[in-house]
């Protein structure tokens, strides 16, 4: 499962030997994130975000479980119980701000992790399964975050729940009954709040399970690296511990500084003031917006303002919003360039930096803005490019592009030469 030169776990202490016989947990850790796992020596800081995502999941579970000890999932008291946490529970304000900002930072980290994958072609064979599991994690995260945001039962909680579950009513025939079934009523109320709480508690553990599969699948081929050239020999790798534990430790420090700056000094910056008003079914907020990490997809939803033949605009928007994430599932087969890393793909790289990245920026911006001009038109243009990029540009570019020459190996890329490369050149000329 690992490279042949991976170090072997050899417990010396009687206790670790005893454990290794009865329950080889230390061996598992040693081989998964210890000295027994060889990793490409040339990973840059974009490769820190996987470990950071795992840390965020842990952070959310720890803060979330303690919050759940004080929170009351009942529409009559939910808002007040959140304020009780903020005011009366010891360090309650820190837990709540930590959990709310933790969700935001989790998404920052995962977005960077995904875009690392886009650029370095991490989704390509033999890593398709890692990628597919990653997209599943992302979908589960979105569901979890959406339901978590409903729990404080503020105005945005309520109206966000109403708008998002209302999307299901766009589905022909079964839509309306489906929405009523999901909510347990015609509008969000106690029944909806209770089931959202139950699921919001459950899903992070499902995510944890899928993360285990994700990492299991990762350990079969091992990580990619910025050259995209697969590991060939021992000189291409270093053991995960201590090299990447040290590098990830430093990354974690930088992450925590940014995170704590928000928790302690700007705790409401990423939130919406309306969620400090208790839910009120009779008063609709002027602008209903979801949390910032949904903005690109919300912009895509709202970009479809015209009916297409027999498909109503609303249904088109819902289809497009879900498809925007579903296309990621097909990425390994849409982009079939044999070259992995964007560094060696001149045309791909242009479309990445001047197409996809500005498009995402526009979608982020417009999704948070009011549904008026020019934001609607801007998001329409960006939405068009978004779909063209994944479904048209990538398949065509991977066909016509002439990649740059790849280094022989990671070692050659790092050191400028690799003895084995010279040897194989000699062997070739000798033939």
């Amino acid at each position: 499962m690992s490279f042949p030169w991976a170090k072997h776990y050899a417990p010396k202490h009687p206790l670790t030997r005893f454990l290794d016989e009865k329950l080889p947990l230390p061996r598992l850790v040693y081989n998964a994130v210890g000295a027994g796992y060889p990793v490409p020596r040339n990973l840059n800081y974009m490769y820190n975000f996987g470990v950071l995502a795992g840390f965020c999941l842990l952070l959310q579970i720890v803060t979330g479980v303690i919050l759940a000890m004080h929170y009351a999932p009942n529409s009559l008291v939910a808002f007040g119980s959140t304020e009780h946490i903020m005011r009366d529970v010891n360090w309650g304000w820190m837990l709540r701000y930590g959990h709310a900002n933790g969700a935001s930072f989790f998404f920052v980290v995962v977005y960077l992790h995904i875009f690392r994958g886009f650029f370095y072609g991490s989704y390509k064979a033999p890593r398709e399964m890692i990628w597919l599991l990653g997209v599943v994690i992302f979908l589960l995260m979105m569901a979890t975050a959406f339901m978590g945001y409903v729990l404080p039962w503020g105005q945005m909680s309520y109206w966000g729940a109403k708008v998002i579950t209302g999307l299901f009513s766009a589905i022909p025939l079964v839509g309306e009954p489906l929405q009523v079934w999901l909510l347990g009523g015609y509008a969000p109320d106690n029944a909806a709040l209770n089931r959202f709480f139950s699921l919001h508690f459950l899903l992070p553990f499902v995510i944890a399970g899928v993360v285990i599969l994700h990492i299991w699948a990762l350990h079969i081929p091992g990580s990619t690296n910025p050259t995209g050239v697969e590991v060939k020999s021992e000189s291409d790798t270093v053991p995960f511990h201590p090299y990447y534990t040290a590098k990830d430790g430093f990354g974690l420090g930088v992450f925590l500084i940014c995170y704590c700056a928000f928790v302690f000094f700007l705790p409401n910056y990423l939130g919406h003031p309306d969620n400090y008003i208790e839910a009120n079914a009779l008063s609709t907020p002027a602008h209903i917006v979801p949390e910032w990490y949904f903005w690109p997809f919300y912009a895509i939803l709202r970009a479809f303002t015209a009916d297409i033949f027999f498909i109503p605009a609303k249904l088109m928007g819902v289809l497009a919003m879900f498809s925007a994430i579903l296309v990621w599932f097909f990425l390994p087969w849409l982009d079939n360039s044999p070259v992995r890393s964007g560094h060696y793909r001149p045309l791909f790289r242009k479309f990445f930096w001047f197409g996809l990245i500005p498009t995402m920026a526009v979608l982020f911006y417009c999704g948070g803005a009011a549904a008026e001009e020019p934001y609607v038109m801007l998001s329409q243009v960006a939405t068009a490019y978004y779909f063209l990029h994944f479904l048209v540009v990538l398949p065509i570019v991977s066909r016509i592009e002439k990649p740059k020459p790849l280094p022989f190996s990671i070692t050659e890329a790092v050191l400028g030469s690799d003895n084995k490369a010279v040897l194989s050149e000699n062997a070739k000329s000798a033939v």
Partner: protein
Amino acid sequence: MIRFIGIAAGAFFALSVLWAFVTGAYSAATEPAPETAEHAFHKHPKELHLASDGPFGTWNLEQLQRGYQVYKEVCSACHSLKFVAMRDLEQLGYSEAEVKAEAASWTVPGIDPNTGETTTRPGEPTDYFPSPYPNNVAAAAANNNAIPPDLSLMTKARHDGSAYVYSLLTGFQQQPTELLKKFPSAKTPEGLHYNPYFANLNLAMAPPLTMDGQVTYADGTKATIDQMAQDVSAFLTWTAEPTMPKRKQTGWPVLGFLLFATILAYMAKQQIWSNVKPAKNKQDD
């Protein structure tokens, strides 16, 4: 095969959304959205500087005490503070005995111990600042159909909260004549009051602070309208998040520790990697 289906699907989504773009652009060009009075005359809050601003900010207790006095003597006629308990006043620098006496000066709903009828009784430190109305219907009936909102979280529930409350309280004025000229139908309805800081320009609250000296401050500060508005905004900043200074005071040592730990982690990482040539990829971009 999948690539052909993909290209077809991509073209479908792109063309649909571009069609929406074209129809939207056409209707924007032929019938531009009419200007509204809210859009033209709404104002952003004025600047307000409080001792609690900024990463080192903390409460100015004298100001909070004055703000509490304004709340008690003016705003509490209509607004509750249902998340703030009278015992919390100790945080404003009152002694336990003072809080007890202060609480007793409030009247809160109670139950007659002999008959079980609902009645009123003097407040206790464990009570929360009550609404003067028995229920929302009564509140709306007394206020031109608008319910005076609970003020506990008001400064967190609006953009630029503290500055917004201050601007709202000092922003009541005559409706500008240009507004009436441009938007004759936007005349402030009977019973509402024009205020350019309020989202739709007209609100049901009559100007609560109307003259200098409306309250007589215990500390002798001159009670101008502007002073009272600032003080009550400061007080409502406290009611929205009494733990704010503790949050900032905790933040500094946390950040200091993290900075120190991160520098150590960086040095450890450099040390560990020093025998491996640093990751330098021969790339040309």
